[in-house]
């Protein structure tokens, strides 16, 4: 077997995972850019989006349940900001962060209460969950669509930030909170818009993620959320292109590490298993430590033009 054919499935699945992390990571990075807040509840909003889809699709057809799910998720993100973060606007930053952790646990436990802790099967979405053949490997269509959809959405987002009035307001707020308020920017509207965009992307991400890995449990959001957060820090928190590139790097690296043993054995580099697959998660977090030690601003950090 040639090197390409054995390695390609890992790369493709890594790119797909990376695209899903990217959609979540943008939510982290945008909120951080504006509020200097790490919104720990973001991963759980992603999980709730998955659960809503499970329950909505049980009684509604898909062409209604998908838009409704996205709408409700956006509403949830908006409500969380208004209820849990806005009253703490003048409080120390740490208080808002603790409030975010509280929201995260609240959502997880609500989900535990509603689902009874059982795994919920995500609905099959026709067309995107179909099986296709790509360069001789079998995969589902969603794996291929994910990276492209991610890039299209990110492009649209960058356009929005650079060429619209609300985008300009976002850039201004991320530069200087107080001054932009003095200049007549309605800060609450800008913050709400940020949360709406972030949760919208998380909702789209949840469709792609759970179509690929069709099981939703209350802790489903925790690991992807954490990885997306690492991706945002890796790329330079506050920077959208940084978050996306960070997410793709982490997704691909993780997937390749899981298959590294096999790749090396099949290509005759090693003859025995050495158990590298075990370290796929450890790698992500080692990467986080390394980047924080050597380049705390991340790959693209502190480039104010990219900031939201």
């Amino acid at each position, binding site marked *: *077997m040639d090197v390409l054919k*054995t390695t390609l*499935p*890992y790369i493709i*699945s890594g790119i797909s*995972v990376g695209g899903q992390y990217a959609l979540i990571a943008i939510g982290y990075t945008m909120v951080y850019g504006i509020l200097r807040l790490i919104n720990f509840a973001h991963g759980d909003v992603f999980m709730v989006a998955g659960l809503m889809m499970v329950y909505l699709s049980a009684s509604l057809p898909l062409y209604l349940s998908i838009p409704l799910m996205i709408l409700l998720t956006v509403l949830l993100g908006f409500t969380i900001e208004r209820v849990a973060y806005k009253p703490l606007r003048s409080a120390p930053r740490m208080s808002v962060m603790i409030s975010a952790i509280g929201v995260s646990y609240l959502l997880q436990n609500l989900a*535990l209460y509603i689902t*009874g*802790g*059982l*795994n919920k*099967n995500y609905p099959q979405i026709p067309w995107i*969950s179909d*099986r296709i053949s790509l360069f001789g*490997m*079998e*995969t*589902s269509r969603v*794996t291929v669509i994910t990276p492209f959809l991610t890039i299209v959405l990110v492009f649209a987002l960058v356009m929005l930030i650079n060429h619209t009035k609300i985008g300009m307001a976002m850039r201004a707020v991320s530069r200087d909170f107080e001054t932009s308020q003095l200049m007549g920017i309605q800060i609450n509207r800008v913050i709400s818009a940020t949360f709406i965009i972030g949760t919208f992307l998380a909702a789209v991400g949840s469709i792609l*993620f759970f179509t*690929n*890995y*069709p*099981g939703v*449990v*209350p*802790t*489903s959001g*925790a*690991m*992807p959320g954490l990885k997306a957060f690492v991706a945002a820090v890796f790329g330079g928190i506050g920077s959208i292109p940084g978050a996306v590139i960070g997410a793709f790097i982490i997704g691909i690296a*993780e*997937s390749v590490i*899981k*298959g590294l*043993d*096999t*790749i090396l*054995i*099949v290509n005759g580099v090693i003859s025995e*298993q050495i*158990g590298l*697959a*075990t370290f*796929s*998660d450890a790698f992500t977090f080692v990467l986080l430590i390394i980047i924080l030690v050597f380049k705390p601003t991340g790959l693209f950090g502190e480039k104010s033009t990219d900031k939201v």
Partner: protein
Amino acid sequence: MKKVLSLTLALIMIFALCSIGVAHADNPVVKIGVFEPQSGDNGAGGKQEVLGMQYANHLTPTVDIGGTTYDVELIYADNASSNDKAPTAAQTLISSGVSLVLGSYGSGVSIAASDTFDAAGVPAIGVTCTNPQVTAGCDVYFRICFLDPFQGTVLANFAKSELGATKAYCLAKQGDDYSGGLCNYFIEAFGKDNCVYEQFPEGTSDYSTYITNAQNQGCDVFFSPVSTEAAAQIIAKADTQALGMPILAGDTWDSNVILQAAKGTNVKICVTTFYQEGADAEFDAGIKSWINSDATALANNGGNDELAAVTVMGFDAYYVALEALKAAGSTDPADVLEVLPSVTYTGVTGAIAFDDIGDAKRDSAFVKQCNTETGVWDFVSVATVG
């Protein structure tokens, strides 16, 4: 105004407490602890195991102990499928004064809680925890199911002779006593040189790389005795990536979660288990009508009345507990512990008797295959080792 309100609330609570007291005043109560996961990775399996106990409790709600009729009350504690929450859940049961404990589904939590039960001298009967370590180091732990060395050997023999496999891919969850243990016994029986063994970390959702690993290494059987939650994902990925080899698993996969995940796919799945539906038609009909009559029970069984072997094992475990209480002639855990080794009972899943370590003497397992068209289990064979 506030005082009046709080006083009223307090009064309501007191009345509520009184009414509970009145309702149960006629018979003394004996408490049996149910130490099972109700959430987490093994939540679905734990709920199914509890169903069997609840059904048994529904059929036989009282027991004669030393000439007095006692009402049997099941006390629940959720160990959340987590080894670090298990001792707390066990302590909750002990504090509420249970005479003995049933459970748990999942060997890891049972091992984690065994010291707590041991220290309190409360006997525990494992229902479907198959790892040898559950009973090996613990005087108070007994069990009514077969063990992993046996199950692993049965599965390895089945893979070799029935499936004609020469190279096996084994996948376990990191730090999970059940899947890790079973994989080791499988590898021991199958031959270490012919096995590829990998572990995935907690919180994994992308199993596609493991499927690719198995394909790339030219394996011809995929052995993954992991939790049902992971199983559903593995089956979905095996289907989309055209795995091209049968999947083999242990008793955990005998669940309708697997059937639902596998229905309509093109994946061959074989499992070993404790009970084959249809072996006792009268029992099957009874428990099915009970499950269908109770909305909560139906939801806990995954929305249909397909019987899981763990439910039947839970049913038998309840009666073993009653036998032990009868033989002890007292509700004191110490008395129950003393007579437990000599308790025997013939249940729906066969005869149950304990050996010196406290394990059930069982020497046969059922092998079933998932029918992906109809979504039910098809009986394959009864397997023994010897």
